[in-house]
C-alpha cells in the first residue's frame, strides 16, 4: 500500500486494542447512506516507475523557447546550491515554526531573510513573506486603510501591472475599498503628475508607487512619495527586489515627512516616526531564486516603517533569549494574527511561502551585495542593448523616452499577436503583448532581457523580430 506501512498483523493487533472487529467499524458514526462508493474515475495507482514515465512524457510536451517575456516574472540564473539546500528534508518537510525550540533552523533563516529584505528596501522591518506580489499589494492596501483610519480610497497608477490591479481588486473590493486609477503620461510611460495633482485635497488612504513600473520605466519616486505625504496619504512602494541592488531603496524616497502621526503601536513615539520614505514596500520575490514554473510558487514580501509594524499581516520572527540567556528566535507579535485574534486579526493569512523564502535567503547569501548588483546591472545592460538593436529595425521604435531597469516597450508596425506567433514558430518568446491591457498604445510589445541572455541570443531575437514583421 503506497505510503502506509501497516502489516496485516499490525492491523489486527491495533483493532484488538481499540476493541473493534474491522476498520470500517471506526466509521460507524457516519450515516451509512453518505458513504462514498468506489472512486473508479481515478483509476489504479501508479508505482514510482510508472508515474515517472507519465510525468516525463508530460514535461516533454512543454516546449521551452528562448524567453524574452518579463511582465512580472523574470528568468535569472539560480545557483545550484539554492534548491539543493532548500529541498533538504529538514527544511522541506517542517511545519510553521510554532515550537520554537525545535525550529531554530527555519526561524533563523526567516530572521536573516527579514534583515536582507529590510535592508534591500531600506525599510525598518519585514514580515516573513506573503503568498505573492499581487496578493501582497492587496494586503498593503488593507494595511494602509487600517493605518489611515478615515479613508477607504487607494490611488493606483495605470502603470501598475494589470495582473496586480486585477488581483488587488478581487481581494479588497469586498471591504468597500475603492481603487482609483491614475493615468500615465503617453510620452514618458510614467505617472501623469498633472492628472495626479487633481486628486490633491481629496480623501485617500494611500498612493501606490511602482518602481520600475509595468512598462519597465523608472518613476519619479521622490516626487510621488512627497505628493502622497503632502496630501495626507501613505506611500506604498511596489518594487522589484533585484532592481534594488541598483535603485534607491523605498525607505529613502522623497524628503517630505508624513504630516499626520500614524496611529497604532509605537506611532505615538515621534522618535520612531520616519522622516522620509515610503511607508510600506511590497513586491514579488520571484527574481530572488524562484524558477518561472508557469507562475508559481513565488512569494510576496512586505516591509514597512517601525510605526506600522503592528498593522502588518503575516508571520514575523523576532530575536530573543532563552532561560539561560542564550540567543534564540521565535514567532512574535502573534496578537495580530488569526489564530489569536480570530475575527479581529489583521488578515486571515495563516501561512507564509517559507520554502520559497528559504531559497531566496540562500540565493541572496550566495550572490551577496556585489553579485546581486552584477545580476541587476547585466540585466539592465542587456535590455538596453536589446532595445537599441530592435529600434534599428525599420518600423520598430522604443515607445517611451524614459530610463528603464530591465524591460522596455517597443512599438511595432504590425499587430503584436501576429508578430509573436511568427517569432514563436522560430523558437522565441518575443515578449508580452500590451494591446489588450493598453489598447491606446497600438502595437506595443513589452520585452525583457535579463543577465541570462548572451549577445547571440539578442541577435537571434532581432533577426526573428525582423523576419516576423517583414
Amino acid at each position, binding site marked *: 500500500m503506497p505510503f502506509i506501512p501497516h502489516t496485516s498483523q499490525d492491523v489486527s493487533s491495533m483493532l484488538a486494542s481499540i476493541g473493534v472487529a474491522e*476498520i470500517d467499524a471506526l466509521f460507524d458514526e457516519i450515516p451509512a447512506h453518505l458513504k462514498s462508493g468506489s472512486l473508479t474515475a481515478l*483509476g489504479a495507482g501508479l508505482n514510482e516507475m510508472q508515474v515517472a514515465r507519465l510525468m516525463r512524457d508530460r514535461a516533454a510536451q512543454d516546449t521551452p523557447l528562448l524567453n524574452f517575456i518579463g511582465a512580472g516574472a523574470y528568468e535569472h540564473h539560480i545557483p545550484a546550491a539554492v534548491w539543493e539546500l532548500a529541498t533538504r528534508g529538514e527544511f522541506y518537510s517542517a*511545519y510553521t515554526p510554532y515550537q520554537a525550540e525545535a*525550529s531554530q533552523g527555519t526561524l533563523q533563516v526567516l530572521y536573516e531573510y527579514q534583515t536582507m529584505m529590510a535592508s534591500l528596501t531600506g525599510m525598518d522591518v519585514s514580515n516573513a513573506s506573503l503568498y505573492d506580489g499581487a496578493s501582497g499589494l492587496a494586503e498593503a492596501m488593507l494595511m494602509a486603510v487600517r493605518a489611515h483610519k478615515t479613508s477607504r480610497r487607494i490611488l493606483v497608477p495605470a502603470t501598475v501591472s494589470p495582473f496586480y490591479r486585477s488581483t488587488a481588486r478581487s481581494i479588497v473590493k*469586498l471591504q468597500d475599498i475603492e481603487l482609483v486609477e491614475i493615468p500615465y503620461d503617453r510620452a514618458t510611460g510614467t505617472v501623469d503628475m498633472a492628472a495626479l495633482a487633481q486628486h490633491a485635497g481629496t480623501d485617500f488612504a494611500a498612493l501606490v508607487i511602482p518602481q520600475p513600473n509595468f512598462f519597465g520605466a523608472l518613476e519619479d519616486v521622490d516626487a510621488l512619495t512627497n505628493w502622497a505625504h503632502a496630501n495626507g496619504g501613505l506611500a506604498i512602494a511596489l518594487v522589484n527586489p533585484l532592481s534594488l541592488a541598483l535603485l534607491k531603496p523605498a525607505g529613502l524616497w522623497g524628503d517630505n515627512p508624513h504630516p499626520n502621526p500614524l496611529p497604532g503601536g509605537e506611532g505615538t513615539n515621534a522618535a520612531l516616526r520616519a522622516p522620509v520614505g515610503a511607508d510600506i514596500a511590497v513586491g514579488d520575490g520571484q527574481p530572488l531564486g524562484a524558477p518561472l514554473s508557469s507562475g508559481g510558487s513565488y512569494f510576496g514580501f512586505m516591509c514597512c516603517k517601525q510605526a506600522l509594524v503592528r498593522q502588518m499581516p503575516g508571520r514575523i520572527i523576532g530575536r530573543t533569549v532563552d532561560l539561560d540567556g542564550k540567543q534564540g528566535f521565535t514567532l512574535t507579535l502573534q496578537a495580530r494574527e488569526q*489564530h489569536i485574534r480570530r475575527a479581529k486579526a489583521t488578515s486571515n493569512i495563516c501561512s507564509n511561502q517559507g520554502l*520559497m523564502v528559504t531559497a531566496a535567503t540562500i540565493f541572496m*547569501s550566495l550572490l551577496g551585495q556585489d553579485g*546581486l548588483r552584477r545580476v541587476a546591472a547585466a540585466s539592465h545592460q542587456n535590455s538596453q542593448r536589446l532595445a537599441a538593436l530592435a529600434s534599428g529595425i525599420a518600423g520598430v521604435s522604443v515607445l517611451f523616452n524614459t530610463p528603464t531597469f530591465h524591460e522596455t516597450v517597443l512599438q511595432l508596425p504590425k499587430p503584436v499577436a501576429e508578430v509573436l506567433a511568427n517569432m514563436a514558430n522560430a523558437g522565441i*518568446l518575443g515578449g508580452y503583448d500590451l494591446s489588450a491591457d493598453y489598447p491606446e498604445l497600438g502595437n506595443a510589445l513589452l520585452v525583457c532581457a535579463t543577465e541570462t541572455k548572451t549577445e547571440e541570443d539578442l541577435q537571434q531575437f532581432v533577426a526573428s523580430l525582423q523576419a516576423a514583421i517583414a
Partner: protein
Amino acid sequence: MLIFERSHPSRRNAAQAPQAMAAVNIPAALLRKTAPLLPEASEMDVVRHYTNLSQKNFSIDTHFYPLGSCTMKYNPRACNTLAMLPNFLARHPLAPAHTGQGVLACLYDLQEILKEVTGMAGVSLMPMAGAQGEFAGIAMIQAYHASRGDTARTEIIVPDAAHGTNPATAVMCGYKVREIPTNADGDVDLDALRAAVGPQTAGLMLTNPSTLGVFETHIEDIKHIIHDAGGLLYYDGANLNAILGKVKPGDMGFDVIHSNLHKTFATPHGGGGPGAGAVGVAARLLPFLPLPVVAKLPSPTSGRGVGGEGAVEYRYLTEADLPLSIGHLSAFTGNIGVLLRAYIYAKMLGADGMHRVAEFATLNANYLMAELQKVGYRIAFPQRRASHEFIVSCKPLKDATGISAMDVAKRLLDKGYHPPTTYFPMLVPECLLIEPTETESKETLDAFVAAMKEIWDEAHATPDLVKGAPYSQPVRRLDDVKAARELDLTWKA
C-alpha cells in the same frame, strides 16, 4: 551565528554572478548610494551555514510529527523530483498555452481528481493556501447572493470550535461573524444554530470532522437548517484526510469547499508554505470560480494541439469565459509547483490508495487514543470515535502535578518527538490535539506512547524536570514576552 557574522568585506563568490560589472545608464537621483546588508561569503560558507541551520529543525523526514489539524504525513520524494523536471521549471507564466500542454494536462487532471473525491461539480486550483481558499469560498457565496439581488445577507455563522482563519476570512469578505456553541459531545448545538439563522444568514463555515476530532453526526440537519434559511454551506477541508475516500463533502450537502493539498495530498509544508487551497463548488456556484480554471477543449484544426481525430488542447479560462468569476487571487496561476506534487501523489495512490488514506489515518488515531487512555491521559471525548485526530486534556494531570499541556509538549522534544498541537481548540482546557496520520507505523506509535508514559511518570515523580524541558534542543524555552516588547526583527551591524 548569523550569516552576516560570517561575512568578510570584499570576499566574493565569483562563480554565481556575471564576471563583469555592467555599465548602468540610470540618472544618479534614482540610484542607491549605499550597498544593501547582504553577506560577503564564499559558496562553501553559505552551504555550510544553511546545512547546519537545517539540522536545527524537527521535520517529518527526521521526527514523528503528530501535529493535530496539520496532517504531517510523509511527503513522497518522487513528488518533488518529478515536479522539478527542468521543462516544468523553465516555462514562463505568460508563455502561450501550446508551449505548456504538459503542465496544463496535469492541472486539468488534478481538477478532475479533486471533483471525484470531493463530489463537487467544479474545481479551481488557484488559491495559494487554505486561508486563501476560504477567502475564495466566502467571496463566491457573496457573489452568488449578490447575483440574485439578495443583499440582506450580512452574516456568516461559525462554530466556536472553528479555526481562527474562518472568522478572519468572513471579516475579510465584509461579513459580520456570528459564533455558535458546541455541545458536550463535540457537535454543533442545533438549537443555537436554529436560533441564529435568518434572512441575514449568508452561510455557515463548518469543518467536518471538526477541530475536536469528531464527525459532525447531525450534518444533514445542519444542511437543512442552513439551506432552508437561504444560506450556503461552506466546508473547511482542513480535516479532509479523515474522510478521504469514505465520504464526499458534496454528498453531505456542502455548496463550496476548500481542500488543503499540503495536508491531504502530501505536499510539503516547507517551514510555513507554500501550500495550496483548491476550491470546489456545487453546480450553482460554477460561474463564480476564481480564475484561471483549466479547460480541455477539442483542438482547433488550425491549432497547435496534438493533431488528428479527437485531438484535445488545454487552456486557461479567463474573464471572457467566466464573466461572473470572483476574479484572480494571484498575479499568475497560484502555486503550480505544489499542485504538480499533489497530482503526482494522487496518481500514485489511485482509487484504492485514496480509500485507504482515511481508513489508516483513523485506525492510527483510534489506536493512539486507546493506548494513551490506558496510560492515564484524559481523552476529551471518550464517548466518541476519534476521526483522524483526537484531543487529550492535561487538566487532570495539571491539577494533580502542576504539569501543563505546554510542559508535556516541551518534554516530548527531549524524547525526540515533535509535540501535538497545544491549546487548540480553545474549548478544551490544557489540550493536546494529536494527529498521527496514516503514514506512521505501529512501532512509531508504540514508542510515542512509551514516551508519553515516561512523561506521565516524571510529572508525578520529578515535576520540576518536566517544567524545565526541553534540555536537548539548540535553545531552551524562549522569552516570548521580551520578543514582543523589545522588538528585534532585523540584525544590525
